[in-house]
């Protein structure tokens, strides 16, 4: 019999329903795995074992009496950026080391209402600012595929936890690639939906025009299951979109026959690891063999996506993070000389180096004399990038390419040079700037480390994109590979 932790989320659901095991057995088993993995992976900041076991017993009762909800008893973890009522929410920062929110994020509440059980809160780059999980106040997360390598970031704890089979699935957020990049580096499936698809209420804000919640799962099928539960209009988030929520699981059966796939030429050339390119091309050949048509597409302005992002995101972050003033919540400096000193030292002590860099960058690009040259110009280039995607989608149903330029890199390897770290998101940032749904699926290995294929769809095209990923996963087994020692 397959061990419980080896099952996908969908497999766990089936096992609970057919009585192969109980929610308490599943929860107990995974809590023990999380605890045992903590010293090597550091994937969690907070565990919620008691609440999880109580929820598991309630789930078992519902399964017994026939009132099970769609996600009843399924064990998940939340990235520690989502506010959880009564459970510490740190956002990976000293600033929020002791912060206990008085409410749930909408995404958290929706998953709880659907029956999911939360085993804990996962480690992350501080305020989601990072691509390696090294900016966390709570220490580096290690990649389950090889000790000493980064799991990617900022949702690095969520990616490592799913990859190491500690939970069935985890939530994440993606502002410039923070779900897709760690999913690729950890060999799992990461989904960033359309901007506004999932409410941002209670999700601690980094860059509000880019932030989007999503999922880290083993399969596209699991992502479809969670997305349906998390999506929808939320009156408490004025940017959440009033668009119908499709039945994403039902949509998975759509065939690849006739699907037109645009291969982004700018993503397949210089800068991409040669062996990674081989893995991506093999994946494309698989789509073609299954009846899809490959078309070369060009995104002419995509080369400016990283500098555009590193103006827009810091500008929005410098404004959003002004709420951390040391007074109403968060770290408060001792013995302030005056109010100004309280603000400056609370923030100076509470924020780490990368967060301070981004606040300073944002303050710079928004300040008098520089606003037009940087912020306004970036918003104009953002429109050019978005228009490139729109043109491509006149010809094709999806655009694809690699998720990252290389497989997982070493912890400490890129921390001295922020630009080198920023360029790690070169293929993922475009979808955020244009607000488009995108995902990463495992597509092979480079020197024993996972590589990811990125798919991008038109706005609200999650169903078609998930179906393409699901169909690919029916005839490939990259997504079923477990890191050694974690199967």
């Amino acid at each position, binding site marked *: 019999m397959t061990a419980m932790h080896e099952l996908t989320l969908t497999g766990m659901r089936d096992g609970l329903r057919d009585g192969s095991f109980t929610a308490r057995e599943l929860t107990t088993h995974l809590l023990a795995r999380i605890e045992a993995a903590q010293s090597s992976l550091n994937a969690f900041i907070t565990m919620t074992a008691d609440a999880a076991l109580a929820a598991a017993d309630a789930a078992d009762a519902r399964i017994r009496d026939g009132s099970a909800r769609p996600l009843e008893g399924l064990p998940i973890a939340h990235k520690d950026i989502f506010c959880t009522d009564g459970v510490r929410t740190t956002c990976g920062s000293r600033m929020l080391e002791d912060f206990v929110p008085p409410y749930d994020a909408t995404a958290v509440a929706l998953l709880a209402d659907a029956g999911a059980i939360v085993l804990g809160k996962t480690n992350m780059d501080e305020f989601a600012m990072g691509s390696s999980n090294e900016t966390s106040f709570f220490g580096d997360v290690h990649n389950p595929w090889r000790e000493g390598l980064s799991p990617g970031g900022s949702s690095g704890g969520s990616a490592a936890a799913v990859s190491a089979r500690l939970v069935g699935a985890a939530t994440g957020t993606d502002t410039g690639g923070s779900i897709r990049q760690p999913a690729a580096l950890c060999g799992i499936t990461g989904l960033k939906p359309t901007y506004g698809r999932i409410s941002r209420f209670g999700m601690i804000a980094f860059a509000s025009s880019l932030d989007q919640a999503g999922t880290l799962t083993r399969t596209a099928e699991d992502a479809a299951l969670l997305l349906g539960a998390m999506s929808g209009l939320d009156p408490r988030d*004025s940017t959440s979109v009033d668009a119908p929520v499709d039945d994403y699981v039902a949509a998975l059966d759509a065939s690849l026959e006739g699907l037109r796939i645009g291969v982004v030429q700018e993503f397949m050339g210089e800068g991409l690891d040669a062996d990674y390119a081989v893995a991506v091309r093999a994946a494309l050949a698989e789509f073609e063999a299954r009846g899809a048509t490959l078309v070369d597409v060009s995104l002419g302005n995509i080369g400016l996506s990283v500098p555009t992002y590193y103006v827009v995101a810091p500008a929005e972050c410098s404004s959003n993070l002004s709420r951390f003033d040391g007074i109403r919540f968060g770290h408060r400096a001792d013995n302030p000389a005056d109010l100004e000193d309280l603000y400056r030292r609370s923030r*100076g002590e509470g924020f780490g180096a990368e967060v301070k860099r981004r606040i300073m960058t944002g303050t710079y690009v928004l300040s008098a004399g520089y606003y037009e040259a940087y912020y306004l110009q970036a918003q104009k280039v953002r429109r050019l990038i978005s228009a490139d995607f729109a043109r491509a989608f006149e010809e094709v149903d999806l655009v694809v390419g690699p998720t990252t330029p290389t497989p997982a890199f070493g912890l400490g390897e890129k921390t001295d040079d922020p630009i080198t770290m920023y360029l790690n998101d070169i293929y993922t940032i475009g979808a955020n700037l*244009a607000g488009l749904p995108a995902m990463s699926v495992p597509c092979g290995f480079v020197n024993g480390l996972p590589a990811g294929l990125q798919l991008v769809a038109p706005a609200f095209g999650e169903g078609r994109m998930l179906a393409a990923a699901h169909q690919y996963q029916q005839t490939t087994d990259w997504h079923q590979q477990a890191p050694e020692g974690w199967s």
Partner: protein
Amino acid sequence: MSIGSDDIEKLAVLARLSFEGDELGDITDKLASIVAFVDQLGEADTASVTPMAHPLDQVQRLRADAPDADIDRARLQACSDATEDGLYLVPRVIE
């Protein structure tokens, strides 16, 4: 353009941040390299382009201007280190 320590101090005041010891040299160097990196945006021809305010070109949805007391004030204030009689305490600002 180059960024010097005067610029950093001005930005730090605007951003209400403090930098201690080695942090000051580090932020000066790294901010300069970030600004040099984003300078390439100037190369794009955007003369006839309207800045993008929303990724899906949607307008902000508004709600009725009515109170929504869904969060308990006492629980909200419990997040703060210093409150008294329902008020937040700060250092004296008026002598």
